[in-house]
């Protein structure tokens, strides 16, 4: 798409710019879901699940598998797109099982133990995915290709990517509505601000924790589910996602959804234009960004110290 590496004075045609912007939004949508889930869980429960990226991977793998099973070689019908939530639901179900069994016993103990147990979970899930689905990537690309592409100016852009961006946008709005406009959201916010007070007021904190954790896992799983037609499911995607989600959360602040949104957008844009102009340094630019933010505002742009 781009002819020469970025040099001052290079003028990109508008449609190429638009394509890059859409790619950035695509990336940001997925990142927002993952990082938002991580942030939500931390905001309510004050824990960081190191296996969060693996739930994203679980979402990707289970969706790809479901699609593959239903497809059986035939052409994808519209029904298959309804399978996309399979990944989100699987991840959420897994989260609902994990929270009471592995996390709840540790709330009263030192934080290191939470990190250690979620790290153990990370190791387990990494190999579990390999155990169930093997070492080779799983694909659902037929869903991706079936939507064809649109022309933007002189460029061509896959229509599926727009679906992802739309889903990301809807998720952001739905989440905002859930947190700020529903009773559940009020309870979530109350528990996150003052757990003891909420409990004294009659809130079933254990249940809220489980619900928040399940919701966070749902978001991660959804991210995996919607991106898998575009990039497939590979081993190791979980940890890569975790690190990127961390960069987002460092920029936006742990515990803040607005921060996750802003951070995801920034990371998406920087990464996309970074790759376009300087493919080699992509990862370094992101870490540099995170480092700069950490040095100036350790709690992130929206974080609470």
């Amino acid at each position, binding site marked *: 798409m781009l002819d020469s590496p970025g040099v001052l004075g290079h003028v990109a045609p508008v449609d190429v710019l638009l394509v890059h912007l859409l790619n950035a939004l695509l990336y940001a949508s997925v990142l927002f879901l993952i990082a938002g889930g991580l942030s939500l869980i931390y905001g309510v429960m004050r824990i960081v699940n190191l296996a969060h990226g693996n739930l994203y991977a679980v979402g990707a793998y289970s969706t790809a598998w479901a699609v593959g099973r239903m497809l059986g070689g035939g052409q994808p019908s519209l029904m298959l797109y309804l399978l996309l939530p399979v990944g989100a639901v699987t991840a959420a179900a897994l989260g609902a099982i994990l929270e009471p069994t*592995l996390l709840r016993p*540790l709330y009263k103990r030192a*934080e290191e133990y939470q*990190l250690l147990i979620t790290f153990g979970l990370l*190791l387990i899930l*990494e190999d579990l995915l*390999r155990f169930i689905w093997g070492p080779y990537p799983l694909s659902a690309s037929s869903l991706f290709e079936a939507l064809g592409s649109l022309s933007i100016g002189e460029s061509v852009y896959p229509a599926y990517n727009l679906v992802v961006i739309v889903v990301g946008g809807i998720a952001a709005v739905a989440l905002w509505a859930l947190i700020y406009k529903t009773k559940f959201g009020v309870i979530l916010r109350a528990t996150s601000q003052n757990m003891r007070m909420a409990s004294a007021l009659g809130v079933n904190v254990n249940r809220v924790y489980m619900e928040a954790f399940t919701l966070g896992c749902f978001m991660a799983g959804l991210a995996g589910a919607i991106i898998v037609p575009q990039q497939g499911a590979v081993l190791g995607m979980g940890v890569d996602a975790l*690190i990127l989600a*961390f960069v987002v959360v460092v920029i936006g602040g742990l515990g803040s959804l607005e921060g996750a949104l802003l951070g995801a957008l920034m990371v998406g844009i920087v990464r996309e234009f970074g790759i376009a102009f300087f493919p080699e340094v992509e990862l370094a630019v992101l870490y540099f960004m995170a480092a700069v933010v950490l040095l100036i505002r350790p709690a992130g742009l929206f974080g609470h110290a």
Partner: protein
Amino acid sequence: MNPIPALPKRALLSAIPIAVILFFLPLLIAPYQVTLLAYGLIFAIAALGFNLLLGYTGLLSFGHSAYFGMGAYAVAFIVKYFNITSMEVFLLGGILASGAIAALFGFLCVRYTRIYFGILTLALSQVLWSLAFKFYWVTGGTDGLRVPTPSLLGVANPEREEKMIFLAHRYYYYVLVIFLVAASAMWVIVHSPFGKALQAIRDNETRAEFVGVQVWRYRWIAFLVSGIYAGLAGTLWVPLNGLTTPDILHWTFSGKIVFFTVLGGFQTFMGPIIGGVVYNYLETYAVGHTVYWQMVLGVVLVLLVLVLPAGIAGTAGRLLLRLRRAT
């Protein structure tokens, strides 16, 4: 965390029989077993360094593979670019390289604690791994770089067919001596005024500051020492392994270091040593049985946290205490 009853000083004299046993072992067991033990001692050095941060300063790092790997690659580069195969030069290079990286990464990481610290250490070590991967013409990529057997104290390495004997004998004793020196040094460090300051930081960061401890600076020093120990382990590891690949920079290797420290017990001094040695045997014998070694580690780690947070050494210590009280 419940305080584990500290071993009385007399128990430390039990370290002498252990050292004696370690010295005489090569005369009693097969050369292959001796090399296994050498690997175990190397992991023990890494674990000791790691635990200075975890057990004594309260910082859980998920990126110690970076320093181990720096030590290993420093050795490989010394061979590749300078054609030197002196173990002493290796040691110097490995310690300097891992120290430099630990100093830099530590500076970035110790301003934070807990979660941010943990993930930041993980991310930084992944950056190193991806560099080793990307710049394959320098690092040999996934094929890695070979390292021949080095000369020890100026005495040249033997012929190929004697390599196993060399490793099981002269190299083992070299490793053993360094291990004993490193372990003794670490023991002094954790019992020094500096070590007390670290423990104070672990127990209560704010109070430590208001007793006059410069928290950030001391964490950084602990990080540096910890990284150097990991680098020393990496340096000793490569000649034994003959080869270094990017795998040892990957976060999965950091996870192993975390695992065997917790396995041995991170609240005691001896725990990490036991964990490093035991883990090496576990890995050697179990890896052959299953591909899903990572899952086994994960399950054991989860069980350790839920059921036996004191690890092998800590649990043994508690049992001993109960036995003593009962008699």
